């Protein structure tokens, strides 16, 4: 029942209460990294800062960002448009020179030894454009493998696995330019994962995919991260993707990390759910002494609507009370907590989270 639309209606004041509660820039080792095996860090970002321009025109895009990604872990990097996601990723890769901060990829400092570091990392920054459209899907996989120094012939099995995983086997020898938008996107991801990398950056991996393909793609990315023990940092506006495959979420806002936590913990921000009960046969005043916190009572043409945020015990109690007062239940709506709600809550952002663009 319309959980999404109701999430958007959630009062700002209630949301903002959660912002500090999720704990600022908690480090991975303070979260649940204990169950990630050996805790082998693929990407470690410490105190990354970048300001563009100078004087009055200076814009601080990234301000002391720290986070890490372990091997086999999928981490979602989220933030409203202009929050600094893209600059964070580009700075972490050395594509943008940061003003401050240390980035290590598999223990190698990106600024002092970029070539060795780049032996461990690949990135899809430009979605479907991230490849040569006049080459075939397989040629792209082979080309980007070879320019990283690996022999494409000896890793053909890996490439076959990728083509299979992303449903590209039948179009392996087709030029990318002739493929659909979604297939191009998948080909681009496949070419990004074609190399033997320890960490991969994927910017908006499900952009342009239909629901079914996006579902499958999520499953495959998750599987590849686990099978190949690759740490994946994924930037997305698609909360379903993040919720489905990410172990952890890093939310940046105004250049700073405001949340670094597991998806479960983040959803746990809403330990209680919102319910909307619509009943007939009682006066609004009759509930004044109820033992349940009711946020809003609305009279609607002979019916009364109660908005409550409560756990299930309290909801049952409310229902019993209403039943005891002769109310007849007309409708019950629930607002299931989801990542989008959590995201809006911590960023205080009511802007749409769909659509491209970054900063």
């Amino acid at each position, binding site marked *: 029942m319309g959980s999404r639309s109701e999430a958007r209606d959630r009062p700002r004041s209630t949301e903002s209460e959660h912002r500090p509660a999720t704990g600022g820039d908690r480090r991975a080792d303070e979260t649940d990294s204990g169950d990630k095996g050996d805790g082998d860090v693929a990407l470690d970002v410490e105190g990354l800062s970048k300001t563009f321009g100078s004087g009055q025109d200076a814009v601080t895009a990234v301000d002391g960002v720290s986070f890490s990604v372990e091997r086999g872990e999928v981490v979602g990097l989220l933030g409203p448009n202009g929050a600094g996601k893209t600059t964070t990723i580009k700075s972490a890769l050395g594509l943008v020179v940061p003003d401050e901060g240390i980035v290590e990829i598999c223990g190698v400092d990106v600024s002092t030894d970029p070539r060795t570091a780049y032996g461990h990392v690949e990135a899809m920054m430009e979605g479907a454009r991230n490849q040569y459209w006049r080459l075939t899907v397989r040629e792209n996989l082979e080309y980007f493998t070879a320019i990283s120094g690996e*022999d494409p012939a000896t890793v053909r099995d890996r490439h076959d696995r990728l083509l299979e995983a992303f449903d590209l086997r039948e179009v392996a020898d087709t030029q990318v330019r002739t493929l659909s938008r979604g297939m191009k996107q998948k080909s681009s991801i496949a070419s990004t994962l074609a190399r033997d990398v320890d960490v991969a950056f994927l910017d908006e991996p499900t952009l342009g995919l239909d629901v079914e393909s996006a579902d499958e793609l999520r499953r495959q990315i998750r599987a590849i991260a686990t099978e190949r023990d690759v740490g994946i940092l994924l930037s997305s506006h698609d909360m379903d993707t993040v919720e489905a495959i990410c172990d952890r979420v890093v939310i940046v806002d105004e250049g700073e990390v405001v949340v670094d936590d597991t998806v479960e913990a983040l959803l746990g921000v809403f330990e209680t759910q919102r319910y909307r009960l619509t009943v007939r046969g009682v006066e609004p005043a009759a509930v004044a002494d109820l033992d349940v916190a009711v946020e809003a009572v609305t009279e609607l043409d002979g019916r009364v609507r109660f908005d409550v945020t409560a756990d299930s015990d309290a909801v049952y109690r409310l229902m019993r009370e209403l039943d005891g007062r002769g109310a007849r239940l007309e409708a019950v709506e629930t607002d299931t907590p989801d990542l989008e709600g959590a995201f809006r809550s911590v960023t205080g952002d009511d802007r749409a989270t769909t659509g491209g663009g970054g900063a």
Partner: protein
Amino acid sequence: MSPAESGGYPRLLGAVVRREVVLFLRYPFEALGTIVVLGVLFAGIFLGGTALAGQAMADSIEGIVVGFFLWILAIGAYGDVAGDVAADASWGTLERHYLTPFGFGPVLLAKAAAKLLTHFVYAGVLLAVALVLTGTTLELDLVTILPVAVFTVASAFGIGIAFGGLTVLYKNVTSWMELVNFVLAGLIAAPLVGNDLLLALPLAQGSALLQRAMRDGVRLWEFEPASLAILVGTGVGYLLVGYLVFTLCQRRARRLGVLGDY
């Protein structure tokens, strides 16, 4: 994996050359188009020149054919290198070439070398066309022509790499490149007699030596050591300066956060 552990630079070069060859064969019309356009251009120069200048044209036809051959190589070395960077930036593939264990510079050098290779093919085909069209015969001693041509175009190559860097930084430098195109054509054609300083300019010395090799049949080992030293020095020098400009430009582009934007 470091390049040392892997297939090394030959694999990198192999991959970029393979891509050029695949596209060359996949889009023959495009390659053919380039050859036809350049062929028509030459025919225009030759026929127009013959009609206007008659004997004078006939006397200098060998030089014009050699200059034409060198010009095709030079525009390949110069224009295609910068064009390749611009194309990668607009396609969204530039940043992927940055993220390789070989380093951005060596990857772009390899890509540029692959481009140049295709232009050697164009230049060879067009040289044959020009020779047939004009009924000229030239000394085609490859042992002499190839090294001289390689060091000659190395200077244009260096300028191309520098413009590749400027493209990364400023995005659209086409109008400046057109200006340099004219200058390069001028340097191929200009007689260098009487001014040693001109020898330090790109293409100039190589052009002069190539003329002597192809028209007069002078062999590589028959050139004065000083002439060869100038050829090698200008070739390597411009290449190094170009690479330095490229490195500075990409560093600045990364500081400004504009690498890969187009």
